[in-house]
């Protein structure tokens, strides 16, 4: 086994030094009856070449596309080459949580810079070193809001939130008999203000809304904040497409008290849904309730600036069952990818990419609306995703697209019965005019193609 530093002579020397005849002698602490007593029923190990070929075969059993018009929480963006090159440095990817600051300043300073930039994007004051993904970030935000609000036990969740984020919230709230998740309905593609007003009361700790929401529509945080703050609750914005921060106002400046969500778009590929990058940013007043690792600036013995893990009194290894969360390992290397991405992009890059995404999505929408069987469902400002109703059969449309190696938008009826027959489309900087024309051309011929099938 090439990864084991084994040789007959050295192995024997180790055993002699320990004073046992064989490695198995060291298993004496495991009662005989609890040992396996046979070899694992698994294949033999493979050489690097054999395993590489086997895994390439496996990767090839996934279908590749010329273009994906599907977003829905996992966005395909261009990843600059510098990112893979930098994160391949062993100093970054093989190290662990920076428990010993003097030998981990690289990771610690990077996290401090990452925290600065997440605060910049969200317009808030404090964030952590990352959370797992958008769904679990919503859970941490909701539980934190309940701690901050004190004696309030209801969290309102807009139906415009990513359906899977809502599922993850439901799973994590189920064990808490004393906490309640209540859904707020949609009107014209955004959170229904009348339904919100009806459900806001003195027991509501927080309201979670998508920004933009799952349907691609931007929620007016400022308009939502007024009644929510009047009821003494916190407004939590949930962003599943971090590129939108280059287009829409920072949630912290638009009325949100907390901002959370998914930042995989910053330097990552869709990766079948993970590893992704959860984030949560809050106001300074709430910093001692934030979950997860937080890095702070300090001085060393000689007065030089350095960085350490801080506010650890919130965390599981100190506070055990009274901790703000159980999170330990987070998404460190994905946060590094995002940090490098933000550094390469800079303000001009993020703004420019956002404008390009908006332009491509608007163009896609206009071209699709020229087809007779696609029509608007509601009219809201959007970023790079939007909903159109389709008069035809989604299955036929999907088959026609796949045949041409295009992945169409999402069949919304899967998650929203009220939007049966509607499709959620996405376009990013990766979609050329030519790809959009190919899609339009295929859609124009779907009925004909369906008959051919």
């Amino acid at each position, binding site marked *: 086994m090439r990864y084991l530093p084994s040789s007959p002579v050295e192995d024997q020397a180790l055993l002699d030094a320990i004073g046992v005849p064989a490695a198995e002698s060291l298993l004496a602490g495991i009662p005989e009856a*609890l040992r396996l007593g046979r070899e694992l029923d698994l294949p033999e190990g493979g050489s690097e070449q054999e395993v590489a070929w086997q895994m390439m075969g496996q990767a090839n059993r996934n279908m590749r596309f010329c273009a994906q018009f599907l977003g*829905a929480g996992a966005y395909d963006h261009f990843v600059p080459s510098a990112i893979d090159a930098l994160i391949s440095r062993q100093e970054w990817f093989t190290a662990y949580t920076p428990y010993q600051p003097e030998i981990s300043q690289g990771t610690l300073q990077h996290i401090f810079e990452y925290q600065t930039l997440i605060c910049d994007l969200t317009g808030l004051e404090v964030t952590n070193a990352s959370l797992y993904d958008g769904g679990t970030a919503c859970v941490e935000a909701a539980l934190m809001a309940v701690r901050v609000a004190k004696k309030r036990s209801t969290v309102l969740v807009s139906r415009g939130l990513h359906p899977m984020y809502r599922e993850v919230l439901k799973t994590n709230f189920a064990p808490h008999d004393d906490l309640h998740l209540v859904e707020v309905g949609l009107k014209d593609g955004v959170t229904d203000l009348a339904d919100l007003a009806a459900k806001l009361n003195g027991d509501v700790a927080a309201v979670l809304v998508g920004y933009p929401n799952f349907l691609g529509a931007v929620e007016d945080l400022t308009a939502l904040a007024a009644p929510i703050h009047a009821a003494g609750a916190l407004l939590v914005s949930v962003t599943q497409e971090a590129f939108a921060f280059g287009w829409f106002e920072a949630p912290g400046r638009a009325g949100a008290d907390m901002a959370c969500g998914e930042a995989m778009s910053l330097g990552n590929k869709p990766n079948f849904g993970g590893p992704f990058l959860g984030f949560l940013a809050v106001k300074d007043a709430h910093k001692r309730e934030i979950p997860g690792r937080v890095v702070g600036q300090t001085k060393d013995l000689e007065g030089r600036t350095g960085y350490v893990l801080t506010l650890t009194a919130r965390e599981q290894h100190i506070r055990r069952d009274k901790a703000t969360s159980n999170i330990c390992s987070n998404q460190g290397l994905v946060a590094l990818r995002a940090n490098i991405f933000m550094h390469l992009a800079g303000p001009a890059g993020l703004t420019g990419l956002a404008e390009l995404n908006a332009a491509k999505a608007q163009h896609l929408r206009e071209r699709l609306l020229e087809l007779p069987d696609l029509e608007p469902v509601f009219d809201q400002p959007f970023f790079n995703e939007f909903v159109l109703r389709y008069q035809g059969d989604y299955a036929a449309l999907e088959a026609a697209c796949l045949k041409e190696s295009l992945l169409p938008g999402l069949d919304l009826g899967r998650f929203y019965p009220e939007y049966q027959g509607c499709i959620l489309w996405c376009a990013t900087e990766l979609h050329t005019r030519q790809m959009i024309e190919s899609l339009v051309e295929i859609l124009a011929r779907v009925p004909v193609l369906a008959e051919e099938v």
Partner: protein
Amino acid sequence: MFLRQREPLSFERSVPGKRGMDLPKADVPAARDTRPAHLKRSGFAALPELSEVEVIRHFTRLSKWNYGVDDGIYPLGSCTMKHNPRLNEKVAGLPGFTDSHPMAPDALVQGNLELIYDLQAWLQEITGLPGVTLQPSAGAAGELTGVMLIRAYHVSRGAKRRVILIPDSGHGTNPATAAMAGYEVVELPSLPDGTIAFDDVTDPASGKTRKGLRTLVAELGPEIAGAMITNPNTVGVFEYRFKEVSDLLHSVDALVYMDGANMNALVGVARPGDFGVDVMHLNLHKTFSTPHGGGGPGAGPVCCAERLMPFLPVPVVVRDTVKVGEGEVPRHTYRWDWDRPESIGKVHTFYGNFGILVRAMTYCLSHGSDGLKAATLRAIVNANYIRVRLKGAYSLHIDSPSLHEVVFSDTLQAKHDVHTLDIAKRLIDHGYHPPTIYFPLIVPGALMIEPTESEGKDELDAFCDTMLQIAREAEENPDLLHQAPVLAPLRRLDETTAARKPVLRWTKP
């Protein structure tokens, strides 16, 4: 090894007008602005403006202040810092995997679904438990999923129950997890070897008595939802009465959760499913060599007994066999099953840290049955070699063979006013990452060393020689240790001020 010069914060290097990214030319009309005025992005305050080469140099220089597994032994106990094979990274970067969309129809992602199915099968055989979910993103997420399975089991039988028992030797994530799953934690006392105390334990100093497992089970019985037990425990000792523990808990229908952080000592040697474990998590970033990434991403698959399988998170991957002609090799297709009425629901937005699963699968295929067991045995040999070499110079917590890690304390050095923290910091001056310190909590001044199977005799000897030298330095020149580190990029850092007056981001001066 370290870069000596200071690398300032990138923000301090920013120069207006510089850029590290050129955008593709627009081939569609410019975006019309339909945003309400108050929702238009009003600019950025910190995003730096740097060229690509400046960004690359910045992150390269920062990296040189880190210590990694390729620098040498990384003996963090309980963290299993083993070699991270480059093949795993290469395979996980194949576009067939990285470009695949989590919402794509099942028929288009057969490679991914097959990989998930196969990895689950490997983990089933390794743990002896038939149910597996790969959704949890890390060990703590796995724990939470596992405890939610326990809760769902009890709810299905009438009541969720109130209490989870956790030994005082356990990881902090265990009690934090139980609380997040709505349970009250009752602490189980452990014996000096970290194993669970069956009988009540009286502290000779205070005279205070703590209830042992037998008393707690007798008194709390039907209130106990389960117990979370790390095995081997955090002292590196196998819970040799595990079967008795699980039998006792099962007698009141309480379930047994095993924290699998230390599974690197058991793969191919013993299977939790064979000693009464109902549910457990594995850390793919520990046992299965996926990189730690400076704090993640990891993966925390949960394996469970048959009676918990109905509650596993959705979706569950299913394999269908395609009918073929006689004598032909059967073909399989894979799909997600979302229709699981008793499921606890989703614990991750999609299917977990898929890229990490690809790496773990590659590790499994490279090792095979024989290699997995050889790795376990070598990890145990390495820990015991360190035990015998350092015994005498450092106080050994338990003087008997350990499994994959070995715990010392600073008792012998304390008389020179040298403590665990000083020993750890002095190791940095000698060019090594320190072990885990002050954990487990039941060993005062603990130094918890886990070498893993990756270290050859030369590396182990060099590390042990250094530890022995530090023990001599502690006697002869304790100030060397008190001042350490002096050769790292920074001296000891002021953590108290960092917490009292937190500066958590850069702001423009």
